[in-house]
């Protein structure tokens, strides 16, 4: 299914060919998640449904994710059951699809995959797009009994403790953001962060190092070289990854957890927009 069987969990990565062959399978739901809010409407993989990271997955009042009952309603609306294999893809080298996958995991949905190369690769290969929105029979997704907030998500206090204990912290933002030179990624709007820099002790490894030019993930050997040889991480390490709002770090969370098989990685979704604004939060600049 994936191009590199040396990944620790190669089954979580599927190729565009695989999606083209399986998108009609009723046990599979193809899910597009993008930064560009109207991109799905301009054309998408046949049979794909649209889940927007902000509208569908985040609480609209409190800075948090939706409640378990909302997640159950979202899945039910798209005909998803706990047995459905959800295959995510999207723009921006699958940033947002990794983010959506991470939120699905947060609610305990286990059958998740990413289409390697995302939307860009699908299009560059000349595969079909449609504007037809599929209509699946509503399912009855049970309300998850808990969110895996302790297992795969880190909060400010967790990250602070991690920093103080000098445990592995991976800052996946651009070098300029890491150094404190800028407070947002190049070409993106300033989102009101008052201080630039990084969490003390964090190591900077931009998320983009994990992908090839065609938006596919790098090979297992290349990824091991970056995260294990260069950064010195071990698969058993207790790792927290963060970025600006938790989207790019979802990508790195996916790489570490599934492609390299790290057993204890958490995504700090509050990320720099929380840390850089927080009164009293320690900041390091290089």
């Amino acid at each position: 299914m994936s191009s590199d069987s040396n990944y620790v969990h190669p089954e979580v990565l599927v190729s565009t060919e695989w999606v083209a062959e399986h998108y009609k399978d009723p046990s599979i739901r193809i899910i597009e998640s993008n930064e560009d809010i109207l991109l799905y409407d301009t054309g998408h993989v046949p049979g794909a449904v649209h889940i927007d990271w902000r509208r569908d997955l985040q609480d609209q009042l409190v800075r948090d994710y939706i409640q378990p009952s909302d997640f159950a309603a979202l899945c039910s609306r798209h005909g998803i059951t706990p047995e459905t294999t959800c295959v995510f893809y999207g723009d921006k080298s699958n940033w947002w699809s990794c983010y959506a996958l991470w939120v699905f995991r947060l609610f305990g949905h286990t059958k998740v995959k990413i289409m390697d190369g995302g939307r860009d690769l699908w299009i560059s290969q000349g595969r079909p797009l449609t504007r037809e929105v599929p209509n699946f029979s509503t399912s009855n997704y049970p309300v998850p009994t808990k969110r895996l907030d302790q297992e795969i998500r880190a909060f400010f206090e967790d990250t602070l403790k991690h920093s103080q204990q000098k445990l592995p912290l991976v800052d996946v933002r651009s070098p300029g953001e890491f150094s404190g030179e800028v407070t947002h990624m190049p070409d993106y709007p300033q989102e009101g962060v008052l201080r630039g820099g990084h969490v003390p002790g964090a190591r900077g490894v931009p998320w983009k190092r994990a992908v090839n030019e065609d938006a596919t993930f790098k090979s297992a050997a290349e990824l091991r070289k970056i995260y294990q040889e260069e950064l010195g991480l071990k698969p058993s390490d207790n790792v927290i990854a963060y970025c600006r709002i938790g989207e790019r770090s979802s990508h790195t969370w996916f790489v570490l957890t599934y492609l390299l098989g790290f057993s204890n990685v958490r995504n700090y979704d509050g990320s720099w927009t929380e840390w850089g604004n927080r009164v009293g939060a320690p900041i390091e600049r290089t």
Partner: protein
Amino acid sequence: MVILFFFLSFFLMSYPKKLAEIISLMEGLPEMERRETLVSYADQARKQEPREGEAFDLEDIRKDEECTDSVGVFLKVDEAGGCHFRIKLGPQVQTLTRAMTTILCKGLNGLTLEELQAVPQDFVPKIVGAELVRIRSHTVYYILTRMKSAAMVWKKRQVRE
């Protein structure tokens, strides 16, 4: 009710005529149709690009922090002082920005500099809907800002000359 109608009519009339027509069209659409219409406007964005042989009084092509790709704004001011814009967008520019490009090129075409500067930006939520503004606020005002900025630069140059 009559008073409310009067106020609404007056409010819409304060926008340029073509823009007011687009606002009126978009405001009445259900959400799904509004999105389809926005995509349709986005599909027409390439028609707003400069055409061969056209000359401009000001060309402002840049890639800055508010947008994910380069945006070129080309301004021609006619003898009566009317502003005519062409806009060229890089391939990574988001769909909502492409839609706003078509809407603004159509809706603001021919306005004088003063009329252009006087256009308030409060019409944007009426066109794209409050939800899209709320969840993607940084993309919806960008082109309007660039058009106004290009016009201001041209005006300053005229004063200097």
